[in-house]
């Protein structure tokens, strides 16, 4: 007669020698592979990188004679730092000692809220960043020379803010393109890295919700 799985489990583990704990190497300094911890680390690094990057940008832009662009970028990056800090604080409440369903649900909610918050801001950040760079390019000496050459090749009588209309139209169109696709680009990038994890989470939630019905 075939043994039941309960008997297999019980008798199989009676003399099991392979239940000895594996060697633990430098556990105290181990880098966690848990997705929550990894995202927390990412937020913490973001805060430092944005702060450092903003200051470097400000100095560099000042050195090349564009301090206002440096300040402008700094102003664009500050909200990103605030978002990263807030998301980091929220994630601290994700206790791994909850029931699996509660843990998965709170993690999923935090993840989705966080992605939505970032995506909303990137929708503003990318087009504004492009616009700032474009305006700086237009008003700079090098930019002025390039635009003069452009007008010689493509002459026009229509000028807006002292610039040929097609240049302004191109900047406006590209800004709108950035605004339109910023969120999609952000999601695409996230999906490349965490797509399978997101899919796995959705499957887990569906399965666990079925158990709760």
């Amino acid at each position, binding site marked *: 007669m*075939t*043994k039941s*799985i*309960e008997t*297999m*489990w019980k*008798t*199989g*583990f009676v*003399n*099991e*020698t*392979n*239940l*000895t*704990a*594996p*060697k*633990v*190497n430098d*556990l*105290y300094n*181990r880098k*966690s*592979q*848990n*997705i*929550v911890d*990894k995202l927390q680390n990412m937020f913490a690094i973001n805060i430092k990188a944005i702060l450092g990057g903003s200051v470097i940008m400000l100095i560099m832009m000042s050195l090349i004679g564009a301090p206002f662009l440096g300040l402008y970028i700094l102003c664009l990056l500050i909200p990103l730092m605030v978002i990263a800090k807030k998301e980091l604080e929220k994630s601290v409440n994700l*206790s*791994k*000692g*909850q*029931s*699996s*369903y*509660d*843990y*998965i649900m709170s*993690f999923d909610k935090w993840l989705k809220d966080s992605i939505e918050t970032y995506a909303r801001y990137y929708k503003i950040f990318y087009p504004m960043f492009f616009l700032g760079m474009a305006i700086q390019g237009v008003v700079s000496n090098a930019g002025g020379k390039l635009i003069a050459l452009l007008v010689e090749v493509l002459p026009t009588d229509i000028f807006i803010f002292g610039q040929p209309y097609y240049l302004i139209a191109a900047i406006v169109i590209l800004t709108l393109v950035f605004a339109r696709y910023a969120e999609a680009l952000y999601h695409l990038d996230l999906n*490349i*890295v*965490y*797509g*399978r*994890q997101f*899919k*796995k*989470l959705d*499957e*887990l939630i569906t*399965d*666990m919700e*079925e*158990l*709760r*019905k």
Partner: protein
Amino acid sequence: MGSDFYQLSILPFAGIIIKICRAYTNSQEDFEDYYQEVCLQIWRSKDNFNQESEWSTWIYRISLNVCLTYLKRRKTGDKEIVSDTLPEEAVDDSKAFASDEINELYSAIKHLSETDRAVILLYLEEKTYEEIADIIGSNSNNIGVRIKRIKDRLNKLINQRD
């Protein structure tokens, strides 16, 4: 981590962690990574333990939650991506335990969904339906039905191999 904590609060429960981690991994390397991650998270979460449940239940919860959200390292260029599937050849991990029966049972368990693996492991560890529902966060009325379905599936998988 204070080694006292590991020796006194984790090591006596290593069997639980090993049994759970084995069900979610398909190589010795992955298994050791998961084991260490669970230990790390138990230590990090120790201050949240409110003593409403037993310490062993806490260990079951953390072990399962860690296994369910662990990032399996699959390198693609410099990016780390996660894999939610077991390679076919890894399902036949037949030397993890000394007992052939246990290895056979684990091979079958690895064919189940992640939630079903958690349910059956807790059942085999003689947890009551209420305890299983509490750890998983489900309805205890459904646990019995689900266990019946899982056992049928496991028996079918084991018989197919014989």
